[in-house]
């Protein structure tokens, strides 16, 4: 009797466990299939978009009327953006695939710039046609490679989950068809983009890092860096300072300093250029207490700090309070012309009004030629081009970097339309509306 009962309990337990195991297994399977399907969708979509990209680029080559060329280029821009986003959804970040990503993003940029341009007035140049041809040819190669990989994936039921696994475990010997296929694509793009076929109009698109052009001067030593830090941060001299030099990958050599004051909690960090010993940035990680001074007072102290360290001719552009610190942005101003790329940011603690952060990265890497050009148009002439709905409240001259990363002298207008505030930049020699931005820095708290 007891035996039978035990047996029954055992049977129930076994069946129960079996059922539970089966449920677990199928649930896990469902999740895996779901993840795999996401990858498959991104991959097949990518193959399709590249196909389309190739076709559209081909079509633009044959077009002659500006009326059809602009929309076609706009479509190329859209397709390139979609393909770019598809690549971002595939587990390729451990695989060198950046050249292809870059290629897609450059096609996007090139087509955007040509699409928004008035081709009636400024048709595609010979160079640009050459670039377009090169893009077409390259897209064709990528298309072929991808279609080939796609065929193999479909034929052999290949799974992207295996790719992810192979990449994660760094399985070198495994001959994964997908990985090999993508490596081939990457290699092709690489050889292609290093060739000169693209023409200068395309190469120029690459964001060249200019480095700290302002940091000129003889290289300083580690000890000099310490001295600069002591002076800049107003240290007492009892702090422990550790200096390391930047690695080979840095565009410009610099020293990184970690400053530990045995008395206060939190370290101060600072980077100083090797050439000339310019402070790039500094950040104090000490805990900050309750606010005791106002934002306005903090701004004054920030300004005084700049003056004390030979940053002359700066004016406050923006001030923002975050809890117990404020972030200030100062820009260079020459004869009333604001030079926006030459900005310095600062963080001031509201508990004691001391500077707890400083960064001059933008200022140091800006290379706006001087003297600044004179405006060809008068402010009155330019003001007529401002949207009549906009109520202009402030105006001045300003230098900004435009869409093409070129410095341009503009008239800046601050104005309101409805409840919103807008910042407009209109080119002072061509009258072109270079940039319009809605200024919004306040967000309601949710919940």
């Amino acid at each position, binding site marked *: 009797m007891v035996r039978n009962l035990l047996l029954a309990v055992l049977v129930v337990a076994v069946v129960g466990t079996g059922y539970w195991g089966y449920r677990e297994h199928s649930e896990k399977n469902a999740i895996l299939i779901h993840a795999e399907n996401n*990858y498959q969708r991104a991959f097949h979509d990518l193959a399709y978009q590249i196909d389309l990209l190739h076709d559209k680029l081909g079509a633009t080559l044959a077009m002659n009327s500006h009326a059809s060329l602009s929309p076609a280029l706009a479509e190329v821009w859209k397709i390139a953006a979609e393909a*770019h*986003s598809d690549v*971002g*959804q595939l*587990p*390729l*970040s*451990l695989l*060198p695939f950046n*050249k292809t*990503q*870059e290629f897609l*993003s*450059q096609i996007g940029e090139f087509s955007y710039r040509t699409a928004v341009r008035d081709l009636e007035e400024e048709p595609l140049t010979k160079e640009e046609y050459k670039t377009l041809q090169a893009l077409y040819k390259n897209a064709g190669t990528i298309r072929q490679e991808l279609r080939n990989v796609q065929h193999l994936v479909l034929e052999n039921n290949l799974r992207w989950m295996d790719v*992810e696994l192979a990449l994660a475990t*760094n399985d070198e010997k495994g001959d994964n068809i997908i990985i090999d296929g993508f490596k081939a694509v990457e290699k092709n793009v690489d050889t292609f983009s290093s060739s000169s076929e693209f023409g200068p109009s395309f190469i120029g698109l690459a*964001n060249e*890092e200019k480095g700290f052009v302002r940091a000129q001067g003889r290289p300083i030593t580690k000890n000099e860096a310490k001295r600069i830090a002591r002076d800049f941060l107003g240290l007492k001299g009892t702090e422990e300072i550790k200096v*390391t030099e*930047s*690695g*080979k*990958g*840095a*565009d410009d050599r*610099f020293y990184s300093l*970690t400053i530990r004051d045995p008395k206060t909690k939190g*370290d101060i*960090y600072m*980077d100083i250029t090797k050439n000339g010993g310019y402070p790039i*940035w500094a*950040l104090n990680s000490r805990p900050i207490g309750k606010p005791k*001074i*106002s934002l*306005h007072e903090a*701004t004054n102290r920030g300004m005084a700090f700049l003056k004390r360290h030979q940053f002359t001719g700066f004016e406050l552009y*923006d*001030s*923002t*309070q*975050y809890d117990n610190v404020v*972030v200030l942005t100062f820009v260079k101003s020459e004869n009333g012309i604001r030079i926006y790329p030459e900005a310095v*940011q600062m*963080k001031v603690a509201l508990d004691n009004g001391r500077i707890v*952060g400083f*960064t001059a*990265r933008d200022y140091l890497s800006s290379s706006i030629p001087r003297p600044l050009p004179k405006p060809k148009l008068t402010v009155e002439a330019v003001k007529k081009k401002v949207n009549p709905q906009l109520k202009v409240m402030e105006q001045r001259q300003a230098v900004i970097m435009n869409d093409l990363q070129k410095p341009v002298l503009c008239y800046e207008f601050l104005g*309101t339309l409805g*409840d*919103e*505030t807008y910042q407009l930049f209109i080119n002072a020699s061509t009258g072109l509306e270079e940039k319009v931005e809605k*200024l*919004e*820095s*306040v*967000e*309601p*708290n*949710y919940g």
Partner: protein
Amino acid sequence: MVRKLIVFTLIGVLVCLHPAGDAAAFSPQVIQRGAVGDDVIELQARLQYLGFYKGKIDGVFGWGTYWALRNFQQKYGLPVDGLAGAETKRKLVKASKYYEQFVKEQIRQGNEFTHYGGIPLSQQVKKRGSGGRTAKTTASNVPKGFSQNDIQLMANAVYGEARGEPYIGQVAVAAVILNRLQHPSFPDTVAGVIFQPGAFTAVADGQIWLTPNETARKAVLDAINGWDPSGGAIYYFNPATATSAWIWSRPQIKRIGQHIFCK
């Protein structure tokens, strides 16, 4: 003339109706655009009372408040500088009323409300909130182009990836996310970069869903506001755990804590 008289009578009646309205005023600080807190609430309420400010009384000195203040300064013959200094505040207090208890109560309850002069306060409230708010203001400053939720998402990623790192290492990880946004090889959105498959281990193993601490959030804010301790890096790795040979081939910029940052 007649209209003005009516308005004045109305205001007079209102004042009689609300004897609780007090003129307890501003702290001595000069209030400047970007400021947050009680003084800003009072400033907005008083400017709204006079009809200069039509936006929400949220305690954050944004552009709307700025123009309202300037218009007030112009109308009242003050130097137009957009700063609420002693003289501006004195004239403002003289010209307007501030029903502090009413305003604070509405903010605490999360109600939608206004503070115009000449309209009974009871008509200026739309019950919305459930009450029990502890925050002093109903809005916050955010860096341009980022919402509080973007910051939160980045803080999650930073906390998951680098919570054991020194503060500067956390700022650097946040800076890498931002550098990737700008870089052609990477997706163009915060979520796209963070959730790119295989990009961050904390995303892959779910550590991103730990609740981030205040330090991670501050690190993200510093990075967004322009601090980049990574020196322009778009990759970083922990040399003790990195399995990929390729990552070692990247040109290295610097080491912070356990992470090597590279191009």
